[in-house]
């Protein structure tokens, strides 16, 4: 009997059947629809039509990149400061960071309208000071803010987890050897927290690049993203399923490439640390 096996392989078969039927087969459907006409004949025209959505693709990638970078820049110090706290305080802050995630994603996004609207909280406050109203809602900035807000716990948590496992003696050794606080950060803490940074980046970038609610609510109709295009086409009826599938396929490939590149980074980085 296998040392690690607690039972027979057979008990995994319902799951394997399930995954094949509801994970693999549906993805094959996406690929099939992407390369066929509504009548089922082979065509490349769906793929060619993606050119029409290049603005949406471009905006998705641009906004998501900016949002991911901002998220990283504000999460990293947060994670670092968390590791410097007492253990009980660390646990409490963890719960505090996670808690907004249990609020419905749509409401979390919608609340920002209350804050940013032309007659919203910020502008009401500003008008009392005699400024404004500023145009805050329906701007690219509002979309990026929504992305940062909705997905920031996905960045803080992996960085914090990796950082809190860094052995203190390494940092002590660095300071004994004459490294000042900047060099300790640059030569010890940042390289060792790199795997957390990478997993944070992927966990934020993927939902950002494929979102469709944030852009509709906070971006008005000028800042539509690739997710919006997919949603719109699928709601336009079966005749549009094929083009929508082509867009989904491209989005999926984009995400896979991104994950692959990120994986490559962590592997090589870990190798250099070792």
């Amino acid at each position, binding site marked *: 009997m296998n040392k690690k096996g607690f039972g027979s392989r057979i008990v995994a078969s*319902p799951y394997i059947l399930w995954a094949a039927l509801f994970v693999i087969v549906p993805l094959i459907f996406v690929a099939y629809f992407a390369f066929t006409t509504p009548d089922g004949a082979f065509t490349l025209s769906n793929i060619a039509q993606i050119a029409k959505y290049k603005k949406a693709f471009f905006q998705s990638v641009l906004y998501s990149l900016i949002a991911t970078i901002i998220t990283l820049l504000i999460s990293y110090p947060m994670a670092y400061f968390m590791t410097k706290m007492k253990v009980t305080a660390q646990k409490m802050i963890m*719960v*505090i960071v996670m808690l907004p995630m249990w*609020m419905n994603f749509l409401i979390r996004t919608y609340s920002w309208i*209350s804050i940013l609207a032309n007659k919203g909280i910020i502008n009401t406050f500003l008008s009392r000071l005699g400024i404004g109203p500023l145009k805050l809602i329906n701007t690219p900035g509002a979309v990026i803010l929504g992305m940062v807000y909705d997905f920031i716990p996905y960045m803080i948590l992996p960085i914090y987890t990796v950082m809190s496992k860094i052995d203190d003696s390494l940092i002590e050794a660095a300071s004994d050897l004459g490294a000042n606080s900047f060099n300790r950060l640059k030569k010890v803490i940042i390289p060792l927290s790199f795997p957390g940074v990478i997993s944070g980046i992927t966990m934020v970038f993927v939902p950002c690049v494929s979102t469709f609610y944030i852009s509709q609510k906070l971006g008005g109709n000028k800042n539509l993203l690739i997710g919006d295009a997919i*949603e719109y086409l699928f709601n336009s009826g*079966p005749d549009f399923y094929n083009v929508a599938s082509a867009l989904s396929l491209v989005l999926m490939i984009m995400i896979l490439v991104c994950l692959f590149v990120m994986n490559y980074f962590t592997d090589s980085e870990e190798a250099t640390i070792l």
Partner: protein
Amino acid sequence: MKTLSRIYVALMVFFLYAPVAVMVFFSFNSGESVWVFEGFSGSWYLSAFTNTEMLDALRRTLIVAILSATISTVLGTAAAVGILAFKKKITKNAVMSVTNIPIMNADIVTGVSLMLFFVFIGKIIGAYESLGFTTVLIAHITFNLPYVILSVMPRLKATDSSLQEAALDLGCTPVKAFFKVIVPSIKTSIFTGFIMAFTLSLDDFVISYFTCGHYQTLPILIYNMTKKTVTPDVYALSTLIFISVFVLLILYNIAGSKSDKKRGVA
């Protein structure tokens, strides 16, 4: 440095909770707007409780969450056991790669792919409506399964296999040995998997949106409500849900620390 870090953490907490505070605050608005405050009133809570559409959606969401979490916990635990028994590394890796797909892939792609599949099947069997309760349940089980498996598997791996061998030597059947020896030692991670599946299902919007048809769950209802002008009753309902989840989390943490203590004693 210490004050600086405190200020930074405080600012981040402010950023994280500003929208939550706004939601709670405007749920008590006596007016109809969610950004112009007129006065305090609890009337939106009353109207949330009497809104049958909302209560129906809440009931549907709970049904789907309980069923999908239960089914995916059973299937997923069995899967973890079976996958660990695989002898060939290639098959194991292949199955684990497929398991990772729903976690890694964009929700919208998962939702769209399932919808295409369900619509196709619906056409074949000549169903009047191809999307509904069954399809949304299948979709939720599908995206819950990987989380259950990834939660159960590490704990299962760390369990001492000699315990089960001892049970077998003492005359247990393999099935009995599994339920008497293995399940008690991994029950915390099975429970964690269940809770994770339950909350993921409760909160899911994107995948449900493409697979639910007319079976309107709460996130879908909220989506449809935010298409029109939102009144504070949505905020009132969301505040109530937020508080329930908060209480659930505290209870879960208390249960967790209790079992930690038990392990500490043993």
